[in-house]
């Protein structure tokens, strides 16, 4: 019993210290003018370098969903509706979730490893010695970059997934290009797109917070690998929990 209580206590301590860390990020976010060059560098590292992997995975996921829905819709001989089902499931759910999981595993891990190795090689201390706040210099540009890139990355992922769906729709069921995309856009409403965007921004923030927080924790090189594992696992968990809450919330808001 006491171990469970201890674990709950540790959980709340963790949430508390991440909370303080996030408050620090927001303090610096508005504290001064930002260096555009640093943000662009992070956008390239986090966003643009993730494009190939995101493209590959979302394209194949589009194909998979198309086949799976076709399998169900076959019973009602209404395979043409794969267009709307692929679009809806991608834009509302799979695009943001899969996209953020990819970014968390790829860029989140590299953020933690990068800050972690700076920490153990005294570079973080050096920043402080030069009167530069590590959170301001290292974390805020990454946070801004994630806020900018995530929604764009997710729209891009949605689009490629829909393209994957079209390939199945056209090759297997002979749905013409124009008709497929008409069905797609008829099914999509502004609120679907909006909920996807809100999700992607929230998930992007989770990645920035958790990955950078874990980056400042290591004291030795063995701690770095542990921190990277923690960063990926904890962002995965938080993304899924946050997704669950947001989906339920949107269900009641956007009825």
């Amino acid at each position, binding site marked *: 019993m006491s171990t469970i209580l201890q674990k709950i206590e540790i959980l709340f301590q963790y949430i508390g210290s991440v909370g303080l860390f996030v408050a620090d990020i927001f303090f610096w976010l508005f504290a001064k003018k930002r260096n555009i060059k640093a943000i662009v560098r992070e956008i390239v590292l986090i966003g643009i370098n993730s494009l190939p992997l995101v493209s590959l995975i979302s394209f194949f996921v589009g194909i998979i969903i198309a086949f799976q829905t076709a399998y169900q819709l076959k019973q009602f001989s209404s395979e043409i509706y794969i267009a709307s089902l692929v679009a809806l499931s991608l834009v509302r759910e799979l695009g943001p979730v899969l996209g953020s999981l990819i970014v968390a595993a790829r860029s989140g891990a590299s953020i933690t490893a990068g800050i972690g190795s700076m920490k153990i*090689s005294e570079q973080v*201390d*050096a920043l402080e*010695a030069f009167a530069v706040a590590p959170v301001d210099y290292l974390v805020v540009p990454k946070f801004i970059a994630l806020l900018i890139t995530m929604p764009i990355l997710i729209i891009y992922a949605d689009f490629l997934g829909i393209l994957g769906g079209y390939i199945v729709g056209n090759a297997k069921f002979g749905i013409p290009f124009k008709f497929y995309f008409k069905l797609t856009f008829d099914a999509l409403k502004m609120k679907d797109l909006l909920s996807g965007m809100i999700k992607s921004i929230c998930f992007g923030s989770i990645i920035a917070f958790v990955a950078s927080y874990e980056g400042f924790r290591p004291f030795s090189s063995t701690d770095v690998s542990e921190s990277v594992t923690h960063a990926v696992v904890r962002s995965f968990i938080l993304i899924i929990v946050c997704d669950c809450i947001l989906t339920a919330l949107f269900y009641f808001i956007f009825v």
Partner: protein
Amino acid sequence: MEMVKLENVSKSFGAKKVLHDVNLSINKGETFLIIGRSGAGKTVLLKNIIGLLRPDTGHIFIDGKDITMFNKKELEKVRLQFGLVFQSSALFDFLTIEENVGFFLYQHTALKRGEIRKRVKDTLALVGLEGIEDSYPYQLSGGMKKRVAIARAVIYNPKIIIYDEPTTGIDPIAVDKVVSLIEDLHRRLAITSLVVTHDLEVGLKISERIAFLLGGRIIFQGQKDDLRITADPRVLQFLNGSSSGPIKEMEV
């Protein structure tokens, strides 16, 4: 005139007391050596002096001002009076040598890039390096990195320059170069220098006054020559580099 003065400074982490009533005074313009074994509390002492840590009790005076009660902003200002050379050089590995050496100027001044580049070039020449402005730290040897780190610390004319283990992890020839560079800089720039090391030979070569830190306590403080006449068995054991004596292997 005292540049740095510590009065009964103590610091604990949890139950572990790292510094016990440390008293220390470093005069303006001198090279002062803090010597001690690894784990003696040298780094914690340094972090207290530059305001990265706050002492639990006692006072720290920098240039006559008590910084113990300073707030974050005031401490940042104090920190800018120090130039720090880290044990592992701690060059930012995603920045070029020019951006590293000019880091302070890029962050805290409105100087144009051309001007900064010129000052970086001059400072690199001061430490005996040239033509490496556009290289990255990983392309340099350990000794060169150390010299770049020294250039980064002196470029903004700090009042005090701190060398944390300046000769650890570099080869003997590079050690000799770094030592003569520290002496040379001290002569030319006439700034107060604080050297923290466990390397006695190097330390005695460059410093005028010495403090001996053991287990978080200063057990000896005085002129270099006073060290020869001391009768403290602990200091003698360290001087002789002997494993038998009052300082035991496990003791820190």
